[in-house]
């Protein structure tokens, strides 16, 4: 758990972060979102003491971070930044092994862990472990960045616009990866982004920041349904709020399930349980139909969903 109590950060006269309060529960993903210069990165860097806070208190699992040696504190916090910051003179394997090495793990255990993480991030250990960062694509490099942050199994993950420099398709893939990994490892995560769609997709709770203050701290659904101010309303986009709202929900939650899954008819088209309602609506509009079958991951037909249901949900 991370708690910020009345935390302020000043650079000389300028106030970058102004008396913010924020509590991130264990296992939650808190996304700090806002335009550049709003203090979101500063907030993140105060948590791992890369920047000192001028006033207030920051507690990690109940302990004041100023009482902990900064290196000790950081070793227990995975850190991922934009542009990866991978060490260009080390191989992928050695990059990932960095924190375990600092913690003096035995060699076999490190090797095992590197292998495990590469597999978790869908990089083939045989082909990628001995490559150098320059030989990777942007998406692969950021996967290694995430693997490196997870290496020593920290309780906390800090991510500073990790996907900001990637192209839209790679970013989307990595966001999905992150949701998948988060389901497996359940890290307390603070994630900084300026992209509200990314925030809505990944967050358990979103903190909207402006001019060094937190304007609203709430679940994605509440941010969309009940924006606290005009600023938040503009940020989430007044006009396509409806679509954003239904993109938060999965087909699985709304469909009428069959008592027993049945094998699909040959050539039948349909939706997957993991698709968002937004995708479902889009597909139905495109194919001009009112009802669509839903398939699970193994390809069996498990239910059906209709356009009316989605419309009701969006209201």
């Amino acid at each position, binding site marked *: 758990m991370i708690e910020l109590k009345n935390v302020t950060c000043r650079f000389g006269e300028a106030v970058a972060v102004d008396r913010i309060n924020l509590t991130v529960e264990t296992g939650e993903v808190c996304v700090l979102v806002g335009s550049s210069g709003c203090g979101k990165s500063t907030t993140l860097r105060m948590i791992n003491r890369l920047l000192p806070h001028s006033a207030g208190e920051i507690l990690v699992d109940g302990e004041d971070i100023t009482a902990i040696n900064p290196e000790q504190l950081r070793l227990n916090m995975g850190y991922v930044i934009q542009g990866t910051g991978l060490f260009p003179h080390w191989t992928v394997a050695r990059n990932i092994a960095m924190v375990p090495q*600092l913690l003096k793990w035995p060699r076999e255990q490190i090797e095992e862990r590197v292998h495990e993480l590469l597999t978790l991030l869908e990089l083939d250990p045989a082909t990628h472990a001995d490559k150098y960062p320059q030989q990777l694509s942007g998406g692969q490099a950021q996967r290694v960045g995430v693997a490196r942050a997870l290496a020593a199994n920290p309780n906390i993950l800090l991510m500073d616009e990790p996907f900001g420099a990637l192209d839209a398709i790679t970013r989307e893939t990595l966001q999905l990866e992150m949701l998948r990994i988060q389901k497996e490892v359940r890290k307390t995560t603070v994630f900084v982004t300026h992209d509200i769609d990314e925030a809505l997709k990944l967050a358990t709770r979103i903190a909207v920041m402006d001019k060094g203050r937190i304007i609203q701290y709430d679940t994605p659904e509440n941010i969309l349904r009940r924006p606290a101010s005009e600023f938040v309303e503009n940020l989430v986009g007044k006009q396509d709020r409806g679509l954003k709202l239904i993109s938060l929900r999965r087909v699985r939650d709304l469909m009428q399930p069959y008592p027993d899954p049945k094998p699909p008819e040959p050539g039948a088209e349909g939706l997957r349980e993991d698709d968002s309602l937004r995708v479902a609506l889009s597909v139905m509009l495109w194919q001009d139909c009112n009802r669509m079958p839903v398939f699970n991951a193994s390809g069996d037909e498990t239910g059906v969903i209709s356009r009316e249901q989605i419309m009701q949900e969006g209201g």
Partner: protein
Amino acid sequence: MRIWMPPALLAIVLFVLSVGMPALEPLFEWVQPDKRQVIYDRDSFLFLLQNHLVLVLISAFVSSVAAVAGGIFATRPAGRDFLPLVSQVASIGQTFPPVAVLALAVPVLGFGEAPILVALTLYGLLPILRNTLAGLEGVDQTVRQAALGMGMSPVQVLLRVELPLAGKVILAGIRTSVTINIATAAIGSTIGARTLGDPVIAGLVNGNTAYVLQGAILIGLLALTVDSLFEAIERVWDHRFLPQTEPSNLELRG
């Protein structure tokens, strides 16, 4: 092993020539037919070579240690305030002619080896300092930030990340410095240091081109040997720390 061949070969040629210069008497008689004496013999060439090399090595060692330490200091948070000053001194110092340093050192330190050592050390500092600053400043900020943010101590960041990444540029600075100093050390002969400049100066004074040639050839060979030695060291460094850049070989020479 093959990368050590060129410096080894050059060193052998240098040694053989220093010992066997008298054997080339007929050649120098042809160059300088009007003189009775064509081989410089006030000191043995081997002695001069040795003395020359010792002067360069001592000054190179002292200036490398001092310049790298200074460069590291100026790029730490505590020394940041000095960075503009240090980098200005490093570039302005380069415009100062070595002869002027000698002229200023003699009244203070007298004649002999001492003033040339001071001049070489001071003059050798600057290329190393400049390259140390460039190398350390050239390390990607995000890399440094990541290293710190993941829990490395500042000393670990310096030793494991910054110096290995900046090393090649620093090494290039030392190479430039040593090569320049091999040439500059010869000037030491004008103020009484015993170097390979002796035959050159004696030849100029007596109008004996053969002497000048003998000194110049050995100085040139020495510079070539040392330069190719550095070439080999840089390759080994690359192999150790930046293997992914081979064989394209990023050129970062200062």
